[in-house]
């Protein structure tokens, strides 16, 4: 290989493939990718440090904002640690409701992914379809919790809200509709030859490499790795609910699409099972404000893979340390392996196929206008005046122009 022929292209941080910042420096030989260099951290917000300065109650809301998609995943994972340390026994109904919101979250995340993936390969009809259907589940979440995202459904010790009979009926009806639509998408994905051809053998990664790197979630399961925190380290109500772990042996983007759609069908079953077998009783127990000293680790199968949270308590109402690992953090390391030898045009879909989330991964960038605690809020007028002054200082003055316009209006 002649090194003179290698062309380096920076993709990002602002990105053609993603809505979040990350920099992939791609080395190309002709159309073929020979190397990929990752620079991450553009979404680092200092959440782990911030968590140490806040109470457990405040941290529920802070950690919910790690990610707009898997918000319920992160809070549940953290709260499970705290409950374990405090020795709280969450009532069955609380655990079952948590499970259901978790699965509704998985449904909206996977439908969102399907749309993004379809868009990356130029199949925008599927994007419009799947995002329209995603609205069904967003409406359910909004009706149940009051919010489309960041539902704030969790409490330390259980769930915040109970479910009404009417909501149960609405959810069952919506799940029927979504199941019908998902069956149609599975049909499209397996029979639409253009789509199958576009996704097959793209972003290949073997089971060996998946295990070596430690890939998690649907990305790992699409390479045949039978691993799912809901089965391996059951939490909430997963040890009482029958469901299958979906795996596939295609090891490519096509396999990852099949796994996610299979998981959608399983989620519908879980949601139905929860609604039909929901135990009676309280939904939460009262939690102390101060959590006794101790430490715990908890795992949660978020839509994108396994979240791992570690909490250390020191006996006060604030944690000593909160540690968060989102699935993208390991899955990203598999991307260079997946892309080696592939075409430039495959980069976007391969990255999208791990369903990356950089907010989750980086968690912890300083807010640019942070000013020693005296953050300034500008009114609309002030903001407008600021921009006029800034442009004037830089040699752009609209004063004359404004006068002329004003005269014309008269």
């Amino acid at each position: 290989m002649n090194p003179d022929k290698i062309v380096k292209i920076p993709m990002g941080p602002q990105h053609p493939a993603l809505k979040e910042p990350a920099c992939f420096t791609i080395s190309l030989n002709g159309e073929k990718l020979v190397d990929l260099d990752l620079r991450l951290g553009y979404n680092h917000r200092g959440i782990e440090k911030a968590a140490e300065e806040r109470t457990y109650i405040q941290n529920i809301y802070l950690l919910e904002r790690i990610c707009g998609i898997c918000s319920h995943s992160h809070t549940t994972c953290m709260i499970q640690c705290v409950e374990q340390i405090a020795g709280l026994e969450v009532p069955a109904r609380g655990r079952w409701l948590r499970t259901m919101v978790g699965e509704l979250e998985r449904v909206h995340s996977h439908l969102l992914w399907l749309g993004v993936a379809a868009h990356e390969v130029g199949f925008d009809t599927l994007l419009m379809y799947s995002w329209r259907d995603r609205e069904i589940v967003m409406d359910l979440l909004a009706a149940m919790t009051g919010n489309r995202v960041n539902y704030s459904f969790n409490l330390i010790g259980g769930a915040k809200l109970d479910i009404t009979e009417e909501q149960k009926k609405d959810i069952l009806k919506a799940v029927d509709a979504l199941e019908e639509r998902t069956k149609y998408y599975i049909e499209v994905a397996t029979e639409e030859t253009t789509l199958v051809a576009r996704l097959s053998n793209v972003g290949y990664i073997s089971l060996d490499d998946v295990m070596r790197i430690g890939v998690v979630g649907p990305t790992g399961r699409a390479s045949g790795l039978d691993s799912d925190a809901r089965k391996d380290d059951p939490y909430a109500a997963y040890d009482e609910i029958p469901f299958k772990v979906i795996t596939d042996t295609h090891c490519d983007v096509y396999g990852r699409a099949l796994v996610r759609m299979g998981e959608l069908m399983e989620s519908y079953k879980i949601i139905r099972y929860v609604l039909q077998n929901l135990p009676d009783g309280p939904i939460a127990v009262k939690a102390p404000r101060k959590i006794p000293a101790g430490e715990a680790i908890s795992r949660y199968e978020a839509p994108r893979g396994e979240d791992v949270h570690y909490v250390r308590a020191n006996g006060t109402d604030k944690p000593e340390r909160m540690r968060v690992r989102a699935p993208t953090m390991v899955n990203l390391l598999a991307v260079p392996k997946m892309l080696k030898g592939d075409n430039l045009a495959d980069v976007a879909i391969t990255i999208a196929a791990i369903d990356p989330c950089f907010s989750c991964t980086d968690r912890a960038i300083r807010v640019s206008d942070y000013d020693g605690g005296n953050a300034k809020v500008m009114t609309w007028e002030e903001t407008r005046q600021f921009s006029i002054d800034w442009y004037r200082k830089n040699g752009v003055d609209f004063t004359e122009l404004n006068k002329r316009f004003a005269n014309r209006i008269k």
Partner: protein
Amino acid sequence: MANEQAIQAELQEKFPYFSEKINVSGDRRIWAEVEPANFFEAFDYIVKKMDFPVLCIITGLDSGDNLELIYHLSRRDGTMLNLKTFIPKANPVHKTVMVDYFPGAELYERELVDLLGMRIEGLPEGNRYPLPDDWPEGQYPLRKDWTADILDKLDKQPEEK
């Protein structure tokens, strides 16, 4: 809990220094502590001989005079062994586990370097993570004595030249 206790017993028998330093906190959760000098002997045995093929995360903490590292290892069946070691802040050096054991540990170790000021020997050259390239040197945000206003004192550089 039989499974967890078997793991505990095996480690205590193999390495006497674990006798007081290992406990089972519940289903699938084992916590152990080891001196930095014995760390790799124990780590190698646990990962290779006792079948813990997954490194979930590495947690780094500031615990006063030491930096505490916790390696959260897991079996495929969900059993987790959390191996702790304390590295003195005066000389915060530890070897990498990325090269010989877990290539997926790269970002965890880079976090330890950036956020806690660890020096990880053997970690290959690469982009820093997660802090920005112009982050002031010697500022480790996850240390307990670090507060965000330190940055404002340092941050007196003019916006435009």
